């Protein structure tokens, strides 16, 4: 087995050891799911469709969004910050591997563990509460999976970029939480951007964040026509590549400036 895969495997093993965390997360997420469905019921109050999406679509949107939220938890920013502050980044750098590759493998391992521990139970609860959240079609499901994967990478690179700051500032402090809230809001994970006023929406759609939640979710519920899906996915791939290049440049710059803390 390849070293990176083994790192992921170790993370899955480690995650399985923590059960309390799983139960409490699922309970809280169920509450959020239920509250959001009540919100949509009140907001629609019998209206057939708003901006092309039905109430049923929005409940599916919310359910899948909550599940995605559990899969898109990124450890990389705190991982870098902690390694830099304690100086253990030295140990990571002493291995003949790409350290960011290792960090990505760790996050993917966590993601895989979250899939079984959180996503599957949440999908079951969601199905019991509101019926199975059906995708628009099988093709839409496949396109959703692809879009989700690219969204995952974009989300990871953004987190890693924030993590790089830690090499300079040593701590990230409230930045991590601030980024979390802003991303949740701007990525359409709670409210799809199509409910926002046109001007504001155009600004948000020009940013990379909507590619993480709204694009895959919109594809899932069939909000976009096929040609729009193609165009937006191309744009999403462009963002992913552009952010990757930026990250690579900064990461090389940072490597030259690394100071290891502690004797």
């Amino acid at each position: 087995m390849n070293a990176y895969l083994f790192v992921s495997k170790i993370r899955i093993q480690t995650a399985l050891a923590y059960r309390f965390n799983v139960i409490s997360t699922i309970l809280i997420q169920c509450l959020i799911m239920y509250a959001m469905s009540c919100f949509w019921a009140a907001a629609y109050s019998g209206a057939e469709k708003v901006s092309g999406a039905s109430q049923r679509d929005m409940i599916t949107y919310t359910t899948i969004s909550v599940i995605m939220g559990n899969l898109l938890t990124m450890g990389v920013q705190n991982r870098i910050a902690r390694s830099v502050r304690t100086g253990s980044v030295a140990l990571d750098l002493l291995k003949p591997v790409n350290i960011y590759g290792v960090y990505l493998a760790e996050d993917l391992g966590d993601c895989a563990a979250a899939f079984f521990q959180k996503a599957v139970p949440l999908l079951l609860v969601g199905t019991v509460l509101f019926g199975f959240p059906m995708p628009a079609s099988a093709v839409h499901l496949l396109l959703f999976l692809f879009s989700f994967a690219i969204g995952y990478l974009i989300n990871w690179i953004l987190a890693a970029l924030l993590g790089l700051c830690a090499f300079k500032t040593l701590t990230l402090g409230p930045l991590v939480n601030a980024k979390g809230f802003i991303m949740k809001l701007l990525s359409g994970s709670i409210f799809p951007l199509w409910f926002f006023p046109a001007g504001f929406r155009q600004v948000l759609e020009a940013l990379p964040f909507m590619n993480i939640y709204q694009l895959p979710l919109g594809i899932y519920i069939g909000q976009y026509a096929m040609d729009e899906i193609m165009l937006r996915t191309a744009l999403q791939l462009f963002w992913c590549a552009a952010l990757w290049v930026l990250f690579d440049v900064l990461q090389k710059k940072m490597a030259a400036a690394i100071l290891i803390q502690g004797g």
Partner: protein
Amino acid sequence: MNIIEVSHLVKEYKKIKKERGLRGAVKNLFVQNTETVRAVDDISFSIEKGDIVGYIGPNGAGKSTTVKMLSGIMRPTSGEILIDGISPQEDRKRVVRNLGVVFGQRSQLNWDLRLGETFELLKRIYQIEDKTYTENLGTLNEIFQIDRFIDTPVRQLSLGQRMRGDLVAAMLHSPEVLFLDEPTIGLDVEAKYSVRKFIKEINQRGKTTIILTTHDLGDIQELCQRVIIINEGAIIEDGSLDDLIDKIAPYRHLIIDFYHPVTIPHPHAELVSVREARSVYRFRKDEITAARLIEDISHTAPIKEVGLEEAKIDDIIRTVYQQGSTCKA
């Protein structure tokens, strides 16, 4: 053949000067005064394959900074490092493949998993063949008996066991060069003994070149053919431990108990003290041997008991550190 070559190595970093009090704190928000600190100041040395070299110096002398640059995790401000002909700054991955590093104060073992799991991970990271892996683990186990706790989660290991685990982890891929940063720190006598035995064995078996950073001079005395002493970023001594002792403390003390109180002077030894029947002579090793001295004196008066006192290594090293500081000041 020199496996490690270091020439004119310098590491500078900027330190922010914080001003005192609330006023200072507010001022610091707007203007920051930085000063440049030279942690490593023009160091050059080379190390031959198969040597064990003690790299010692007081706290903050620049030892760890040097080790970090040697292993490629920190870039020097200027100067050149070659490990087996390769610069770790240019090709970190290639250099670390042939490097083992143990930090006594930091563990590379995975806290949550059993010890063997970390070894399995390292096997994949260094792409060690199954056969080589089993062989290496077998050899290391022979010296260290780690199979007794290989299935224990790392967080349940004692410090001594953890250190053994870390040493084995660093040697699994049979690196040619091993950096040990305070490997005996905090260990009890027994664990210290077994760590030193381990270092000796791997040095002899595989001709592993070892650089050892430590504050425990017992480690140095037992293991190192050569010591490099560094203070305030510069090398102040480089040579064998015996030469160093001869240079700093060329004197030895001979204590003689006679049957009666007597005073017997000797042309090649200074009579330091005479108390009742006990006399203490100070002499230089290169001027006269202890045997000769005893013989000469016993011609004059019968001797009951003799004792020989060497300069203490701790005192010698302390003298070197102090000299180093005054030189620079």
